[in-house]
């Protein structure tokens, strides 16, 4: 596990993470450390427990045992929205946009956590309302520009093509200035061109938003091409961990994916 990088400041640490659903060890003794500006991949066959790990990290489930730390502080027992405010944002395997809201509003909802004016100020239209709303609109448009979505700002989210919906979901996750971005199968359902484009986007996100990225993905060329570190899960346990090259040649990984005798 000890991977010596030059300036590896740990951002998100998972220690001995386990969750048991009625006797089933969905996640069993999983541990990893996500460093600043790192792109880490979480891979494994279907049902290996990857999304469950995401749900543990974001407070959807509370782990049976183990510890999760963000910047050295425990986030155990915190609610999802609190964890998001602390700096862990995510996307979903099946895109979950606010479908009937405008593209701009999708991003603005996620910026709500950084806004301060009270409900009364909003209802009465006090100066703080206009000031913050103007600032947020500008910030949201800037964010949409990064993803080339500014032309669709007023469109309903459900009317965007699939690839752009994925992008919008990432943009929404970034709207709260997270420290850690969790991407659940960002390339699912994309054609090779879109996947290549997505790789560029993720690189761009990392450099521009200074965010550590943990992603789940089945597309191996995508994972191998973009991740610096991989964690391989099977039946809830870590079976391998290391650089893409190390993992690719690991016999356990090959067995897990292709089946062994």
């Amino acid at each position: 596990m000890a991977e010596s990088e030059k300036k590896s400041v740990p951002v998100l640490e998972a220690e001995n993470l386990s969750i048991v659903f009625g006797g089933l060890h969905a996640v069993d003794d999983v541990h990893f450390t996500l460093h600043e500006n790192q792109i880490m991949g979480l891979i494994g066959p279907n049902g290996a427990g990857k999304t469950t790990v995401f749900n543990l990290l974001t407070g959807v489930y509370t782990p049976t045992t183990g510890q999760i730390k963000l910047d050295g502080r425990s986030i155990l027992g915190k609610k999802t929205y609190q964890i998001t405010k602390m700096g862990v944002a995510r996307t979903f395997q099946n895109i979950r946009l606010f479908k009937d809201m405008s593209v701009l509003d999708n991003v603005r909802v996620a910026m709500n956590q950084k806004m301060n004016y009270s409900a009364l100020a909003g209802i009465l239209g006090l100066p703080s309302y206009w000031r913050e709303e103007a600032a947020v609109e500008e910030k949201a448009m800037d964010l949409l520009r990064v993803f080339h979505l500014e032309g669709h700002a007023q469109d309903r989210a459900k009317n965007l093509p699939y690839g752009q919906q994925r992008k919008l979901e990432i943009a929404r996750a970034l709207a709260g200035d997270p420290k850690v971005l969790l991407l659940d199968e960002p390339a699912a359902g994309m054609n090779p061109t879109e996947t290549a484009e997505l790789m560029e986007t993720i690189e761009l996100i990392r450099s521009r938003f200074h965010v550590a990225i943990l992603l789940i993905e089945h597309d191996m060329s995508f994972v191998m091409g973009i991740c610096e570190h991989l964690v391989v899960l099977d039946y809830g346990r870590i079976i391998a961990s290391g650089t893409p090259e190390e993992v690719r040649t690991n016999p356990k990984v090959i067995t897990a994916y292709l089946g062994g005798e």
Partner: protein
Amino acid sequence: MTKQKKPGLVPKNKLVSYAVNLVLLVAAYLLFFVLIGSGVINRYTSGIMTTMFINIILTVSLNLVSGFLGQLVLGHAGFMSVGAYTAALFTLYSGLPITIAFPIGIVLAGVVAAVFGVIIGVPALRLRGDYLAIITLGFGEIIRVIILACDFTGGAKGLRGIPTILPQGSDATSLSLAKYSYVFWLAVVTVVVIWAFVRSRHGRAVIAIREDEIAAEASGVHTTYYKLFAFVMAAFFAGVAGSLYAHHIGVLDPSKFNFDYSVEILLMAVLGGLGSITGSIIAAIVLTILPEFLRGFEDYRMLIYAVILIIVMLFKPSGLMGQHEFSLSRLVSRLTAKRAGGAKQGKGE
């Protein structure tokens, strides 16, 4: 792109449209004030108008929860009855002159209904799903039975002798005018407050919960808080509507606030379009007036009413307005654009 906007400044076009709307509102208010005052609109009709404005308050407030938050409420009449009895008992027993007691009673009615909203909402809204519908359904029935069983509410006989909103001895026309003024401006306040809430960051959070609760939570929205906020706000305005109703009718009969009435309010919100405030207003107006027009066909009244509803639901299941809002400034800009060559039209829908 370094546009130096003055912070805190309201955009000019917004100010203009606010001003225009205000002027139109005052003009409409004065128009009907004169019509009622001069007797062109008789007392019967002005009574229906009062009911209509009360229904607008009820429908718009229900729409906040059922339309914008996306949670079904089947006991809105329950909150209304809490407000109605609170205000009526207050004006009956406070000993204050009615001109002072009534405004206080209105606020009190809203506050007490809101407290009930918190009591109902906290357990129901912490859960994900349609628990609110069941719990509010139960609440509406329980509150009615409690009112029936208590002595201080008048029980099944009803609460009688609720004072009129003007001191005794005032003539019927000024009473009609006072009622009209109260319900008109309180309906305006309700609509403006809920409209302003919905377009604020808090309203966006509420709509996001309707769209996808899990994603809203993951986007940093404290879902329980915002659900409760919207629900309590709706309860508050239902209470206000109840206080107006109590002093409009003068007698409170617990059987008025039954499940049928809750459904009737929900019907107005659905017909107008869940998620459209202007739709709620239109539906509340139409569905209050329509039965009056159909009085001539007494036997077929409810039948015609039902058929109209079925037709609307068949051809426009999302309600008359869907999630759209009628906006005067948009209408004007579209009309002027059409006249200027009709280059860009039909961008709506």
